[in-house]
Every structure is written in structure tokens, then in C-alpha cells.
């Protein structure tokens, strides 16, 4: 049924730390790997070894440059996947009932065998979190690794989404955001976690933690406390110097 549930028992989701993400794309690869090999249609690639390769991904990393009114420019790596919105517009537009939000944990899923591939849900999502697979013609989206998090065949520590499990920087956290006592909820409270595009009225479950202010950025333009310790490297003199200059001239 593509009506949204009044209330979900839990609100499972991700908290993504923009302060710690190093933009390594490891979560993109882990996500693509798990979701190609496990539940549902594989995430296909088109022209993978050709001139214009492209493919379906459920998670992508953008990199933004932020220019403040004063001080140095910041570079922020920005992972983006489905935010499992409370008021998910992608669900209510679906004509077939293929898209739905689960009452028990709030995860937004697509039943691929019901999907007619009309693409309307991808239009309705403001975040670009849904992609129609070019080979299968069905809508793909983040499942929050629903086939990992409840999977008794996996060791306890693996029962989290693949992206969270793999992130080498610890920038991704998974948990119940409806429970104010959960670790993720406390993290959001402590770090002033935020919604993306709040004006779109989707009430996303996933939260983003803003980059912390950089303590080492003094207003006088000094950008690193260690900078004064970095003495300029002295030019070698004598034979080595002559060799260096001679080789440089060659």
C-alpha cells in the first residue's frame, strides 16, 4: 500500500558525519558490492569498459566547496543516499504499491516484482536517491541493507548497513532515530545534526552532522598550528648541489 504509515515503531536510519568523511568512496563500493550480490536485481553498469561508462548506485559522494564571508575556503565531502523520509513523497506517488514504508522500522523499500518502471517516484524524491536500473527496468534505492541488519547468519558486528561497516573514517552511524536514548540520537543532539532541504517537507530520518569549526584557523590567516615548525628545506650545496643543478639542466 502506498499510503504512508501514521507512525512507525522505530525510525532506522543513518547519521553521516561531514566532519569526518574523507571522501574515499569506500561506502559507495561496499554498497554497490553488497546490493549487486544480494537481494533484488543487481546494480548494473552500462558500457563499463567503454568510453562513457555509467551505472546504478544507491549511494554517491559529492564534494562541495564552501566559501565563508571571511577565512579560508572549506572542502566538504558529502555522501548521499536515501534518507528514509518520514513524509516520503516517493511512496505516495507510486501507482502500483511497489514503493512502501515499513511500519516496523520506517525503512522505505521497493517491491521489484510490482514495479512497472514508470519512474515517477524518482521524480518525486528531491534528493535524487532513486535510480532506475538500466538493465532491469525497475527502481533501485537504498534498503538500509535490510538483508544484513536482521540477518542471523552474519556475525553481530556485521549486522549494520554495508556502508557503515566499511567506512574507514567512522563517518557513518546506524541506529534508531525515533529513540532519544539511542547512540545516534545522542550524537545528533550533541553535534547539532541537521536535515537536508527541510523546506521540501519530507522530514528525513537520516541526519547530517555539520563540520566542526576548525580550532586552528586563527583569524590572522594562519591555517595550521604546525606551519611555523615547517622550516624551508635548505638547498644542498657542494657536490650534491652541483649534481642536482647539472641534472636539472639536462
Amino acid at each position, binding site marked *: *500500500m*502506498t*499510503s504512508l504509515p501514521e507512525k512507525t515503531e522505530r525510525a532506522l536510519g543513518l547519521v553521516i558525519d561531514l566532519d569526518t568523511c574523507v571522501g574515499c568512496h569506500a561506502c559507495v563500493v561496499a554498497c554497490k558490492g553488497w546490493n549487486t550480490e544480494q537481494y533484488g536485481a543487481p546494480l548494473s553498469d552500462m558500457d563499463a569498459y567503454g568510453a562513457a*561508462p*555509467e*551505472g*546504478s*548506485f544507491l549511494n*554517491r*559522494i*559529492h*564534494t*562541495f*566547496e*564552501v*566559501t*565563508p564571508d571571511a577565512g579560508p*575556503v*572549506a*572542502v*566538504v565531502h*558529502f555522501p*548521499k543516499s536515501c534518507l528514509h523520509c518520514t513524509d516520503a*513523497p516517493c511512496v*505516495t*506517488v*507510486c*501507482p*502500483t*504499491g*511497489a514503493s512502501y514504508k515499513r511500519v516496523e522500522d520506517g525503512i522505505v523499500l521497493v517491491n521489484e516484482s*510490482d*514495479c*512497472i*518502471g*514508470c*519512474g*515517477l517516484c*524518482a*521524480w*518525486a*524524491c*528531491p*534528493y*535524487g536517491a532513486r*535510480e*532506475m536500473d*538500466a538493465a532491469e527496468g*525497475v527502481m533501485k534505492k537504498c534498503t538500509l541493507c535490510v538483508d544484513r541488519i536482521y540477518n542471523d547468519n552474519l556475525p553481530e558486528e556485521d549486522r549494520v548497513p554495508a556502508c557503515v561497516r566499511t567506512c574507514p573514517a567512522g563517518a557513518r552511524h546506524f541506529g534508531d532515530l525515533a529513540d532519544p536514548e539511542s547512540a545516534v540520537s545522542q550524537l545528533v543532539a550533541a553535534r547539532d545534526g*541537521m*536535515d*537536508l*532541504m*527541510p*523546506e*521540501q*517537507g519530507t522530514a528525513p530520518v537520516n541526519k*547530517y552532522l*555539520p*563540520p566542526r569549526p576548525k580550532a586552528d584557523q586563527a583569524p590572522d590567516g594562519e591555517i595550521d598550528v604546525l606551519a611555523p615548525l615547517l622550516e624551508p628545506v635548505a638547498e644542498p650545496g657542494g657536490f650534491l648541489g652541483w649534481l642536482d643543478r647539472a641534472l636539472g639542466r639536462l
Partner: protein
Amino acid sequence: MHPAPSIILFTTLSGLGFGLMIWMGLGFPGVTGWTAFAFAALACGLAGGGLVASTFHLRHPERALKAFSQWRSSWLSREGVLSVATLAAFAPYAAELWLYDMRLAGLGWLVAALALATVLATSMIYAQIRAVPRWHHWTTPALFVLHALAGGALLAAQTYVAALLLLALGGVQIYHWRKGDIRFREAGTTAETATGLGRMGRVRLLEPPHTGRNYLLREMVHVVGRRHAERLRLISLAAGCLLPAFLLSALPSGHLAAGIAVLLHLGGVLAGRWLFFAEAEHVVGLYYGRR
């Protein structure tokens, strides 16, 4: 948004077909026998042809029946249910006109109401999408309904009503364009709100997630051809509304004038529909530094 030919054809043709059904349901033109058959065949051909064209857009048309199930929540599903209901009511109504020279007024009003509701449901598929601010406005349903009413009146040979409706359509069309040009700003969605980084400063895309293209860019970030928007707007306005209205009111009515007016209108509406999609900007473009 990507202007897919199947959707442009579908919305235009089925709008005209259902528009004609509205007028026939109300008893205009008051024809019976084989003339009624010809009008009914035209209406069914346009509406049905449009519906068939729309299934070309589906990647799994073999499951299309499932799309009738979610009418409680989905405008796309409602549109499917309503269009079939309209055709189901129109068939006996038209048969009665054709074979028994009789108009069942009650059934006719039902046909008109269902046909109008179908067009409204089509327009709401677009108007409901908040992520496309240009569409998310009352002018979208107004535009679709006026297209159907004016085009239907044109086909139903209701000369003066058609001329008036065409002028009204032109007015709403201009307002929809003007308003549409500022809707994105009004929606308040920017690269700053999209990333939440506005509190730190101005946000600019430094590196996209990948070097190639993807589904999202193809489907929702259509920038090609917007250059010609102004010219196309003029063409669409002139051919779709002004010229046909002028032909209808200035020339003696006859098949030739009406035929030219219909063709001009169709061309103008197609150009307008193309723009409706091509000019519509989806907020997801902000994540790609484009609109």
C-alpha cells in the same frame, strides 16, 4: 525534466480526446447517427491512442494492470482508473447516439464529469511534485483543464466558445510561464539548504560523484534546448491559442477553417508541452551544480 516524446504525445492527445468527450457528454455538438459515430471514434482514438503512448514510457508494461490498485494515494493510479471509467461510460453513451439517435442525458453528464476528472488527475501527477517548483502550482491543473476544454470545444465545432476558451488558455499559459520563472526561487531550495552547509558559507560543487552521466542527470537535469525557450513560447502561444482563436472568429465557419485551427492548435500545444517538461527544473540539479 527530460521531455520524453511518449509523455508529451500522451498528455496532448489524451487531453484533446477527453476534452471532446466532455463536450459530447454535455450534448455538443448535438449530432446523432453516423456523424455521432465519427465524433466518438475521434474522441476514443485520441484518448485511447494517448493511453497506449503512455505505456511506451513504462519499463515493465506487462505489469501495467497493477497501476490501477493505488487510487487511494496515487494520482497516477487515479488517472488510470478514471480514464478507463470514462471510456466505459462513453462507449454505451456513444453507441446510443449512433444506433438509436438518442442522447441519455444523465449518462452524458457522467461522461463529462469523468472525463474532466481524468484530465485533472493527469495534471495532478505533475502539480503534486514539490521537487519541481515550476509544476507545483495551481496553474498546472488550470493549464491542463483549459487545454482539454479549449481543444475539445475546437474539435466539437463549438466555434465561439472555443475562441473564448483559447484566449483564456493563452492568458493562463502566459501566467504559468511568468510564475514558473520565479517558482524555483520562491521554493527556497538552494545548494545551501540541499547540503545544510549554508551556515558555513556559500556552497559550490567541487567534484561530482563520478565522471560519467547517470539516470538522475538524464531524467531530471535537462538543460539542452532551453536556449530556444523564448522563441518556442511565442510559437506555442501563437499557434496554440491566438491564431486558432482568430481563424474561428474571423473566417466563415467551415471544415477548412476548423481543420486548420485544429492543426495549428495541436502543433502549438505540442510545443508548449515540450517546454512544460524541458523548462522544468528539479531541485536534485543542485547536487550536481546545475539546474
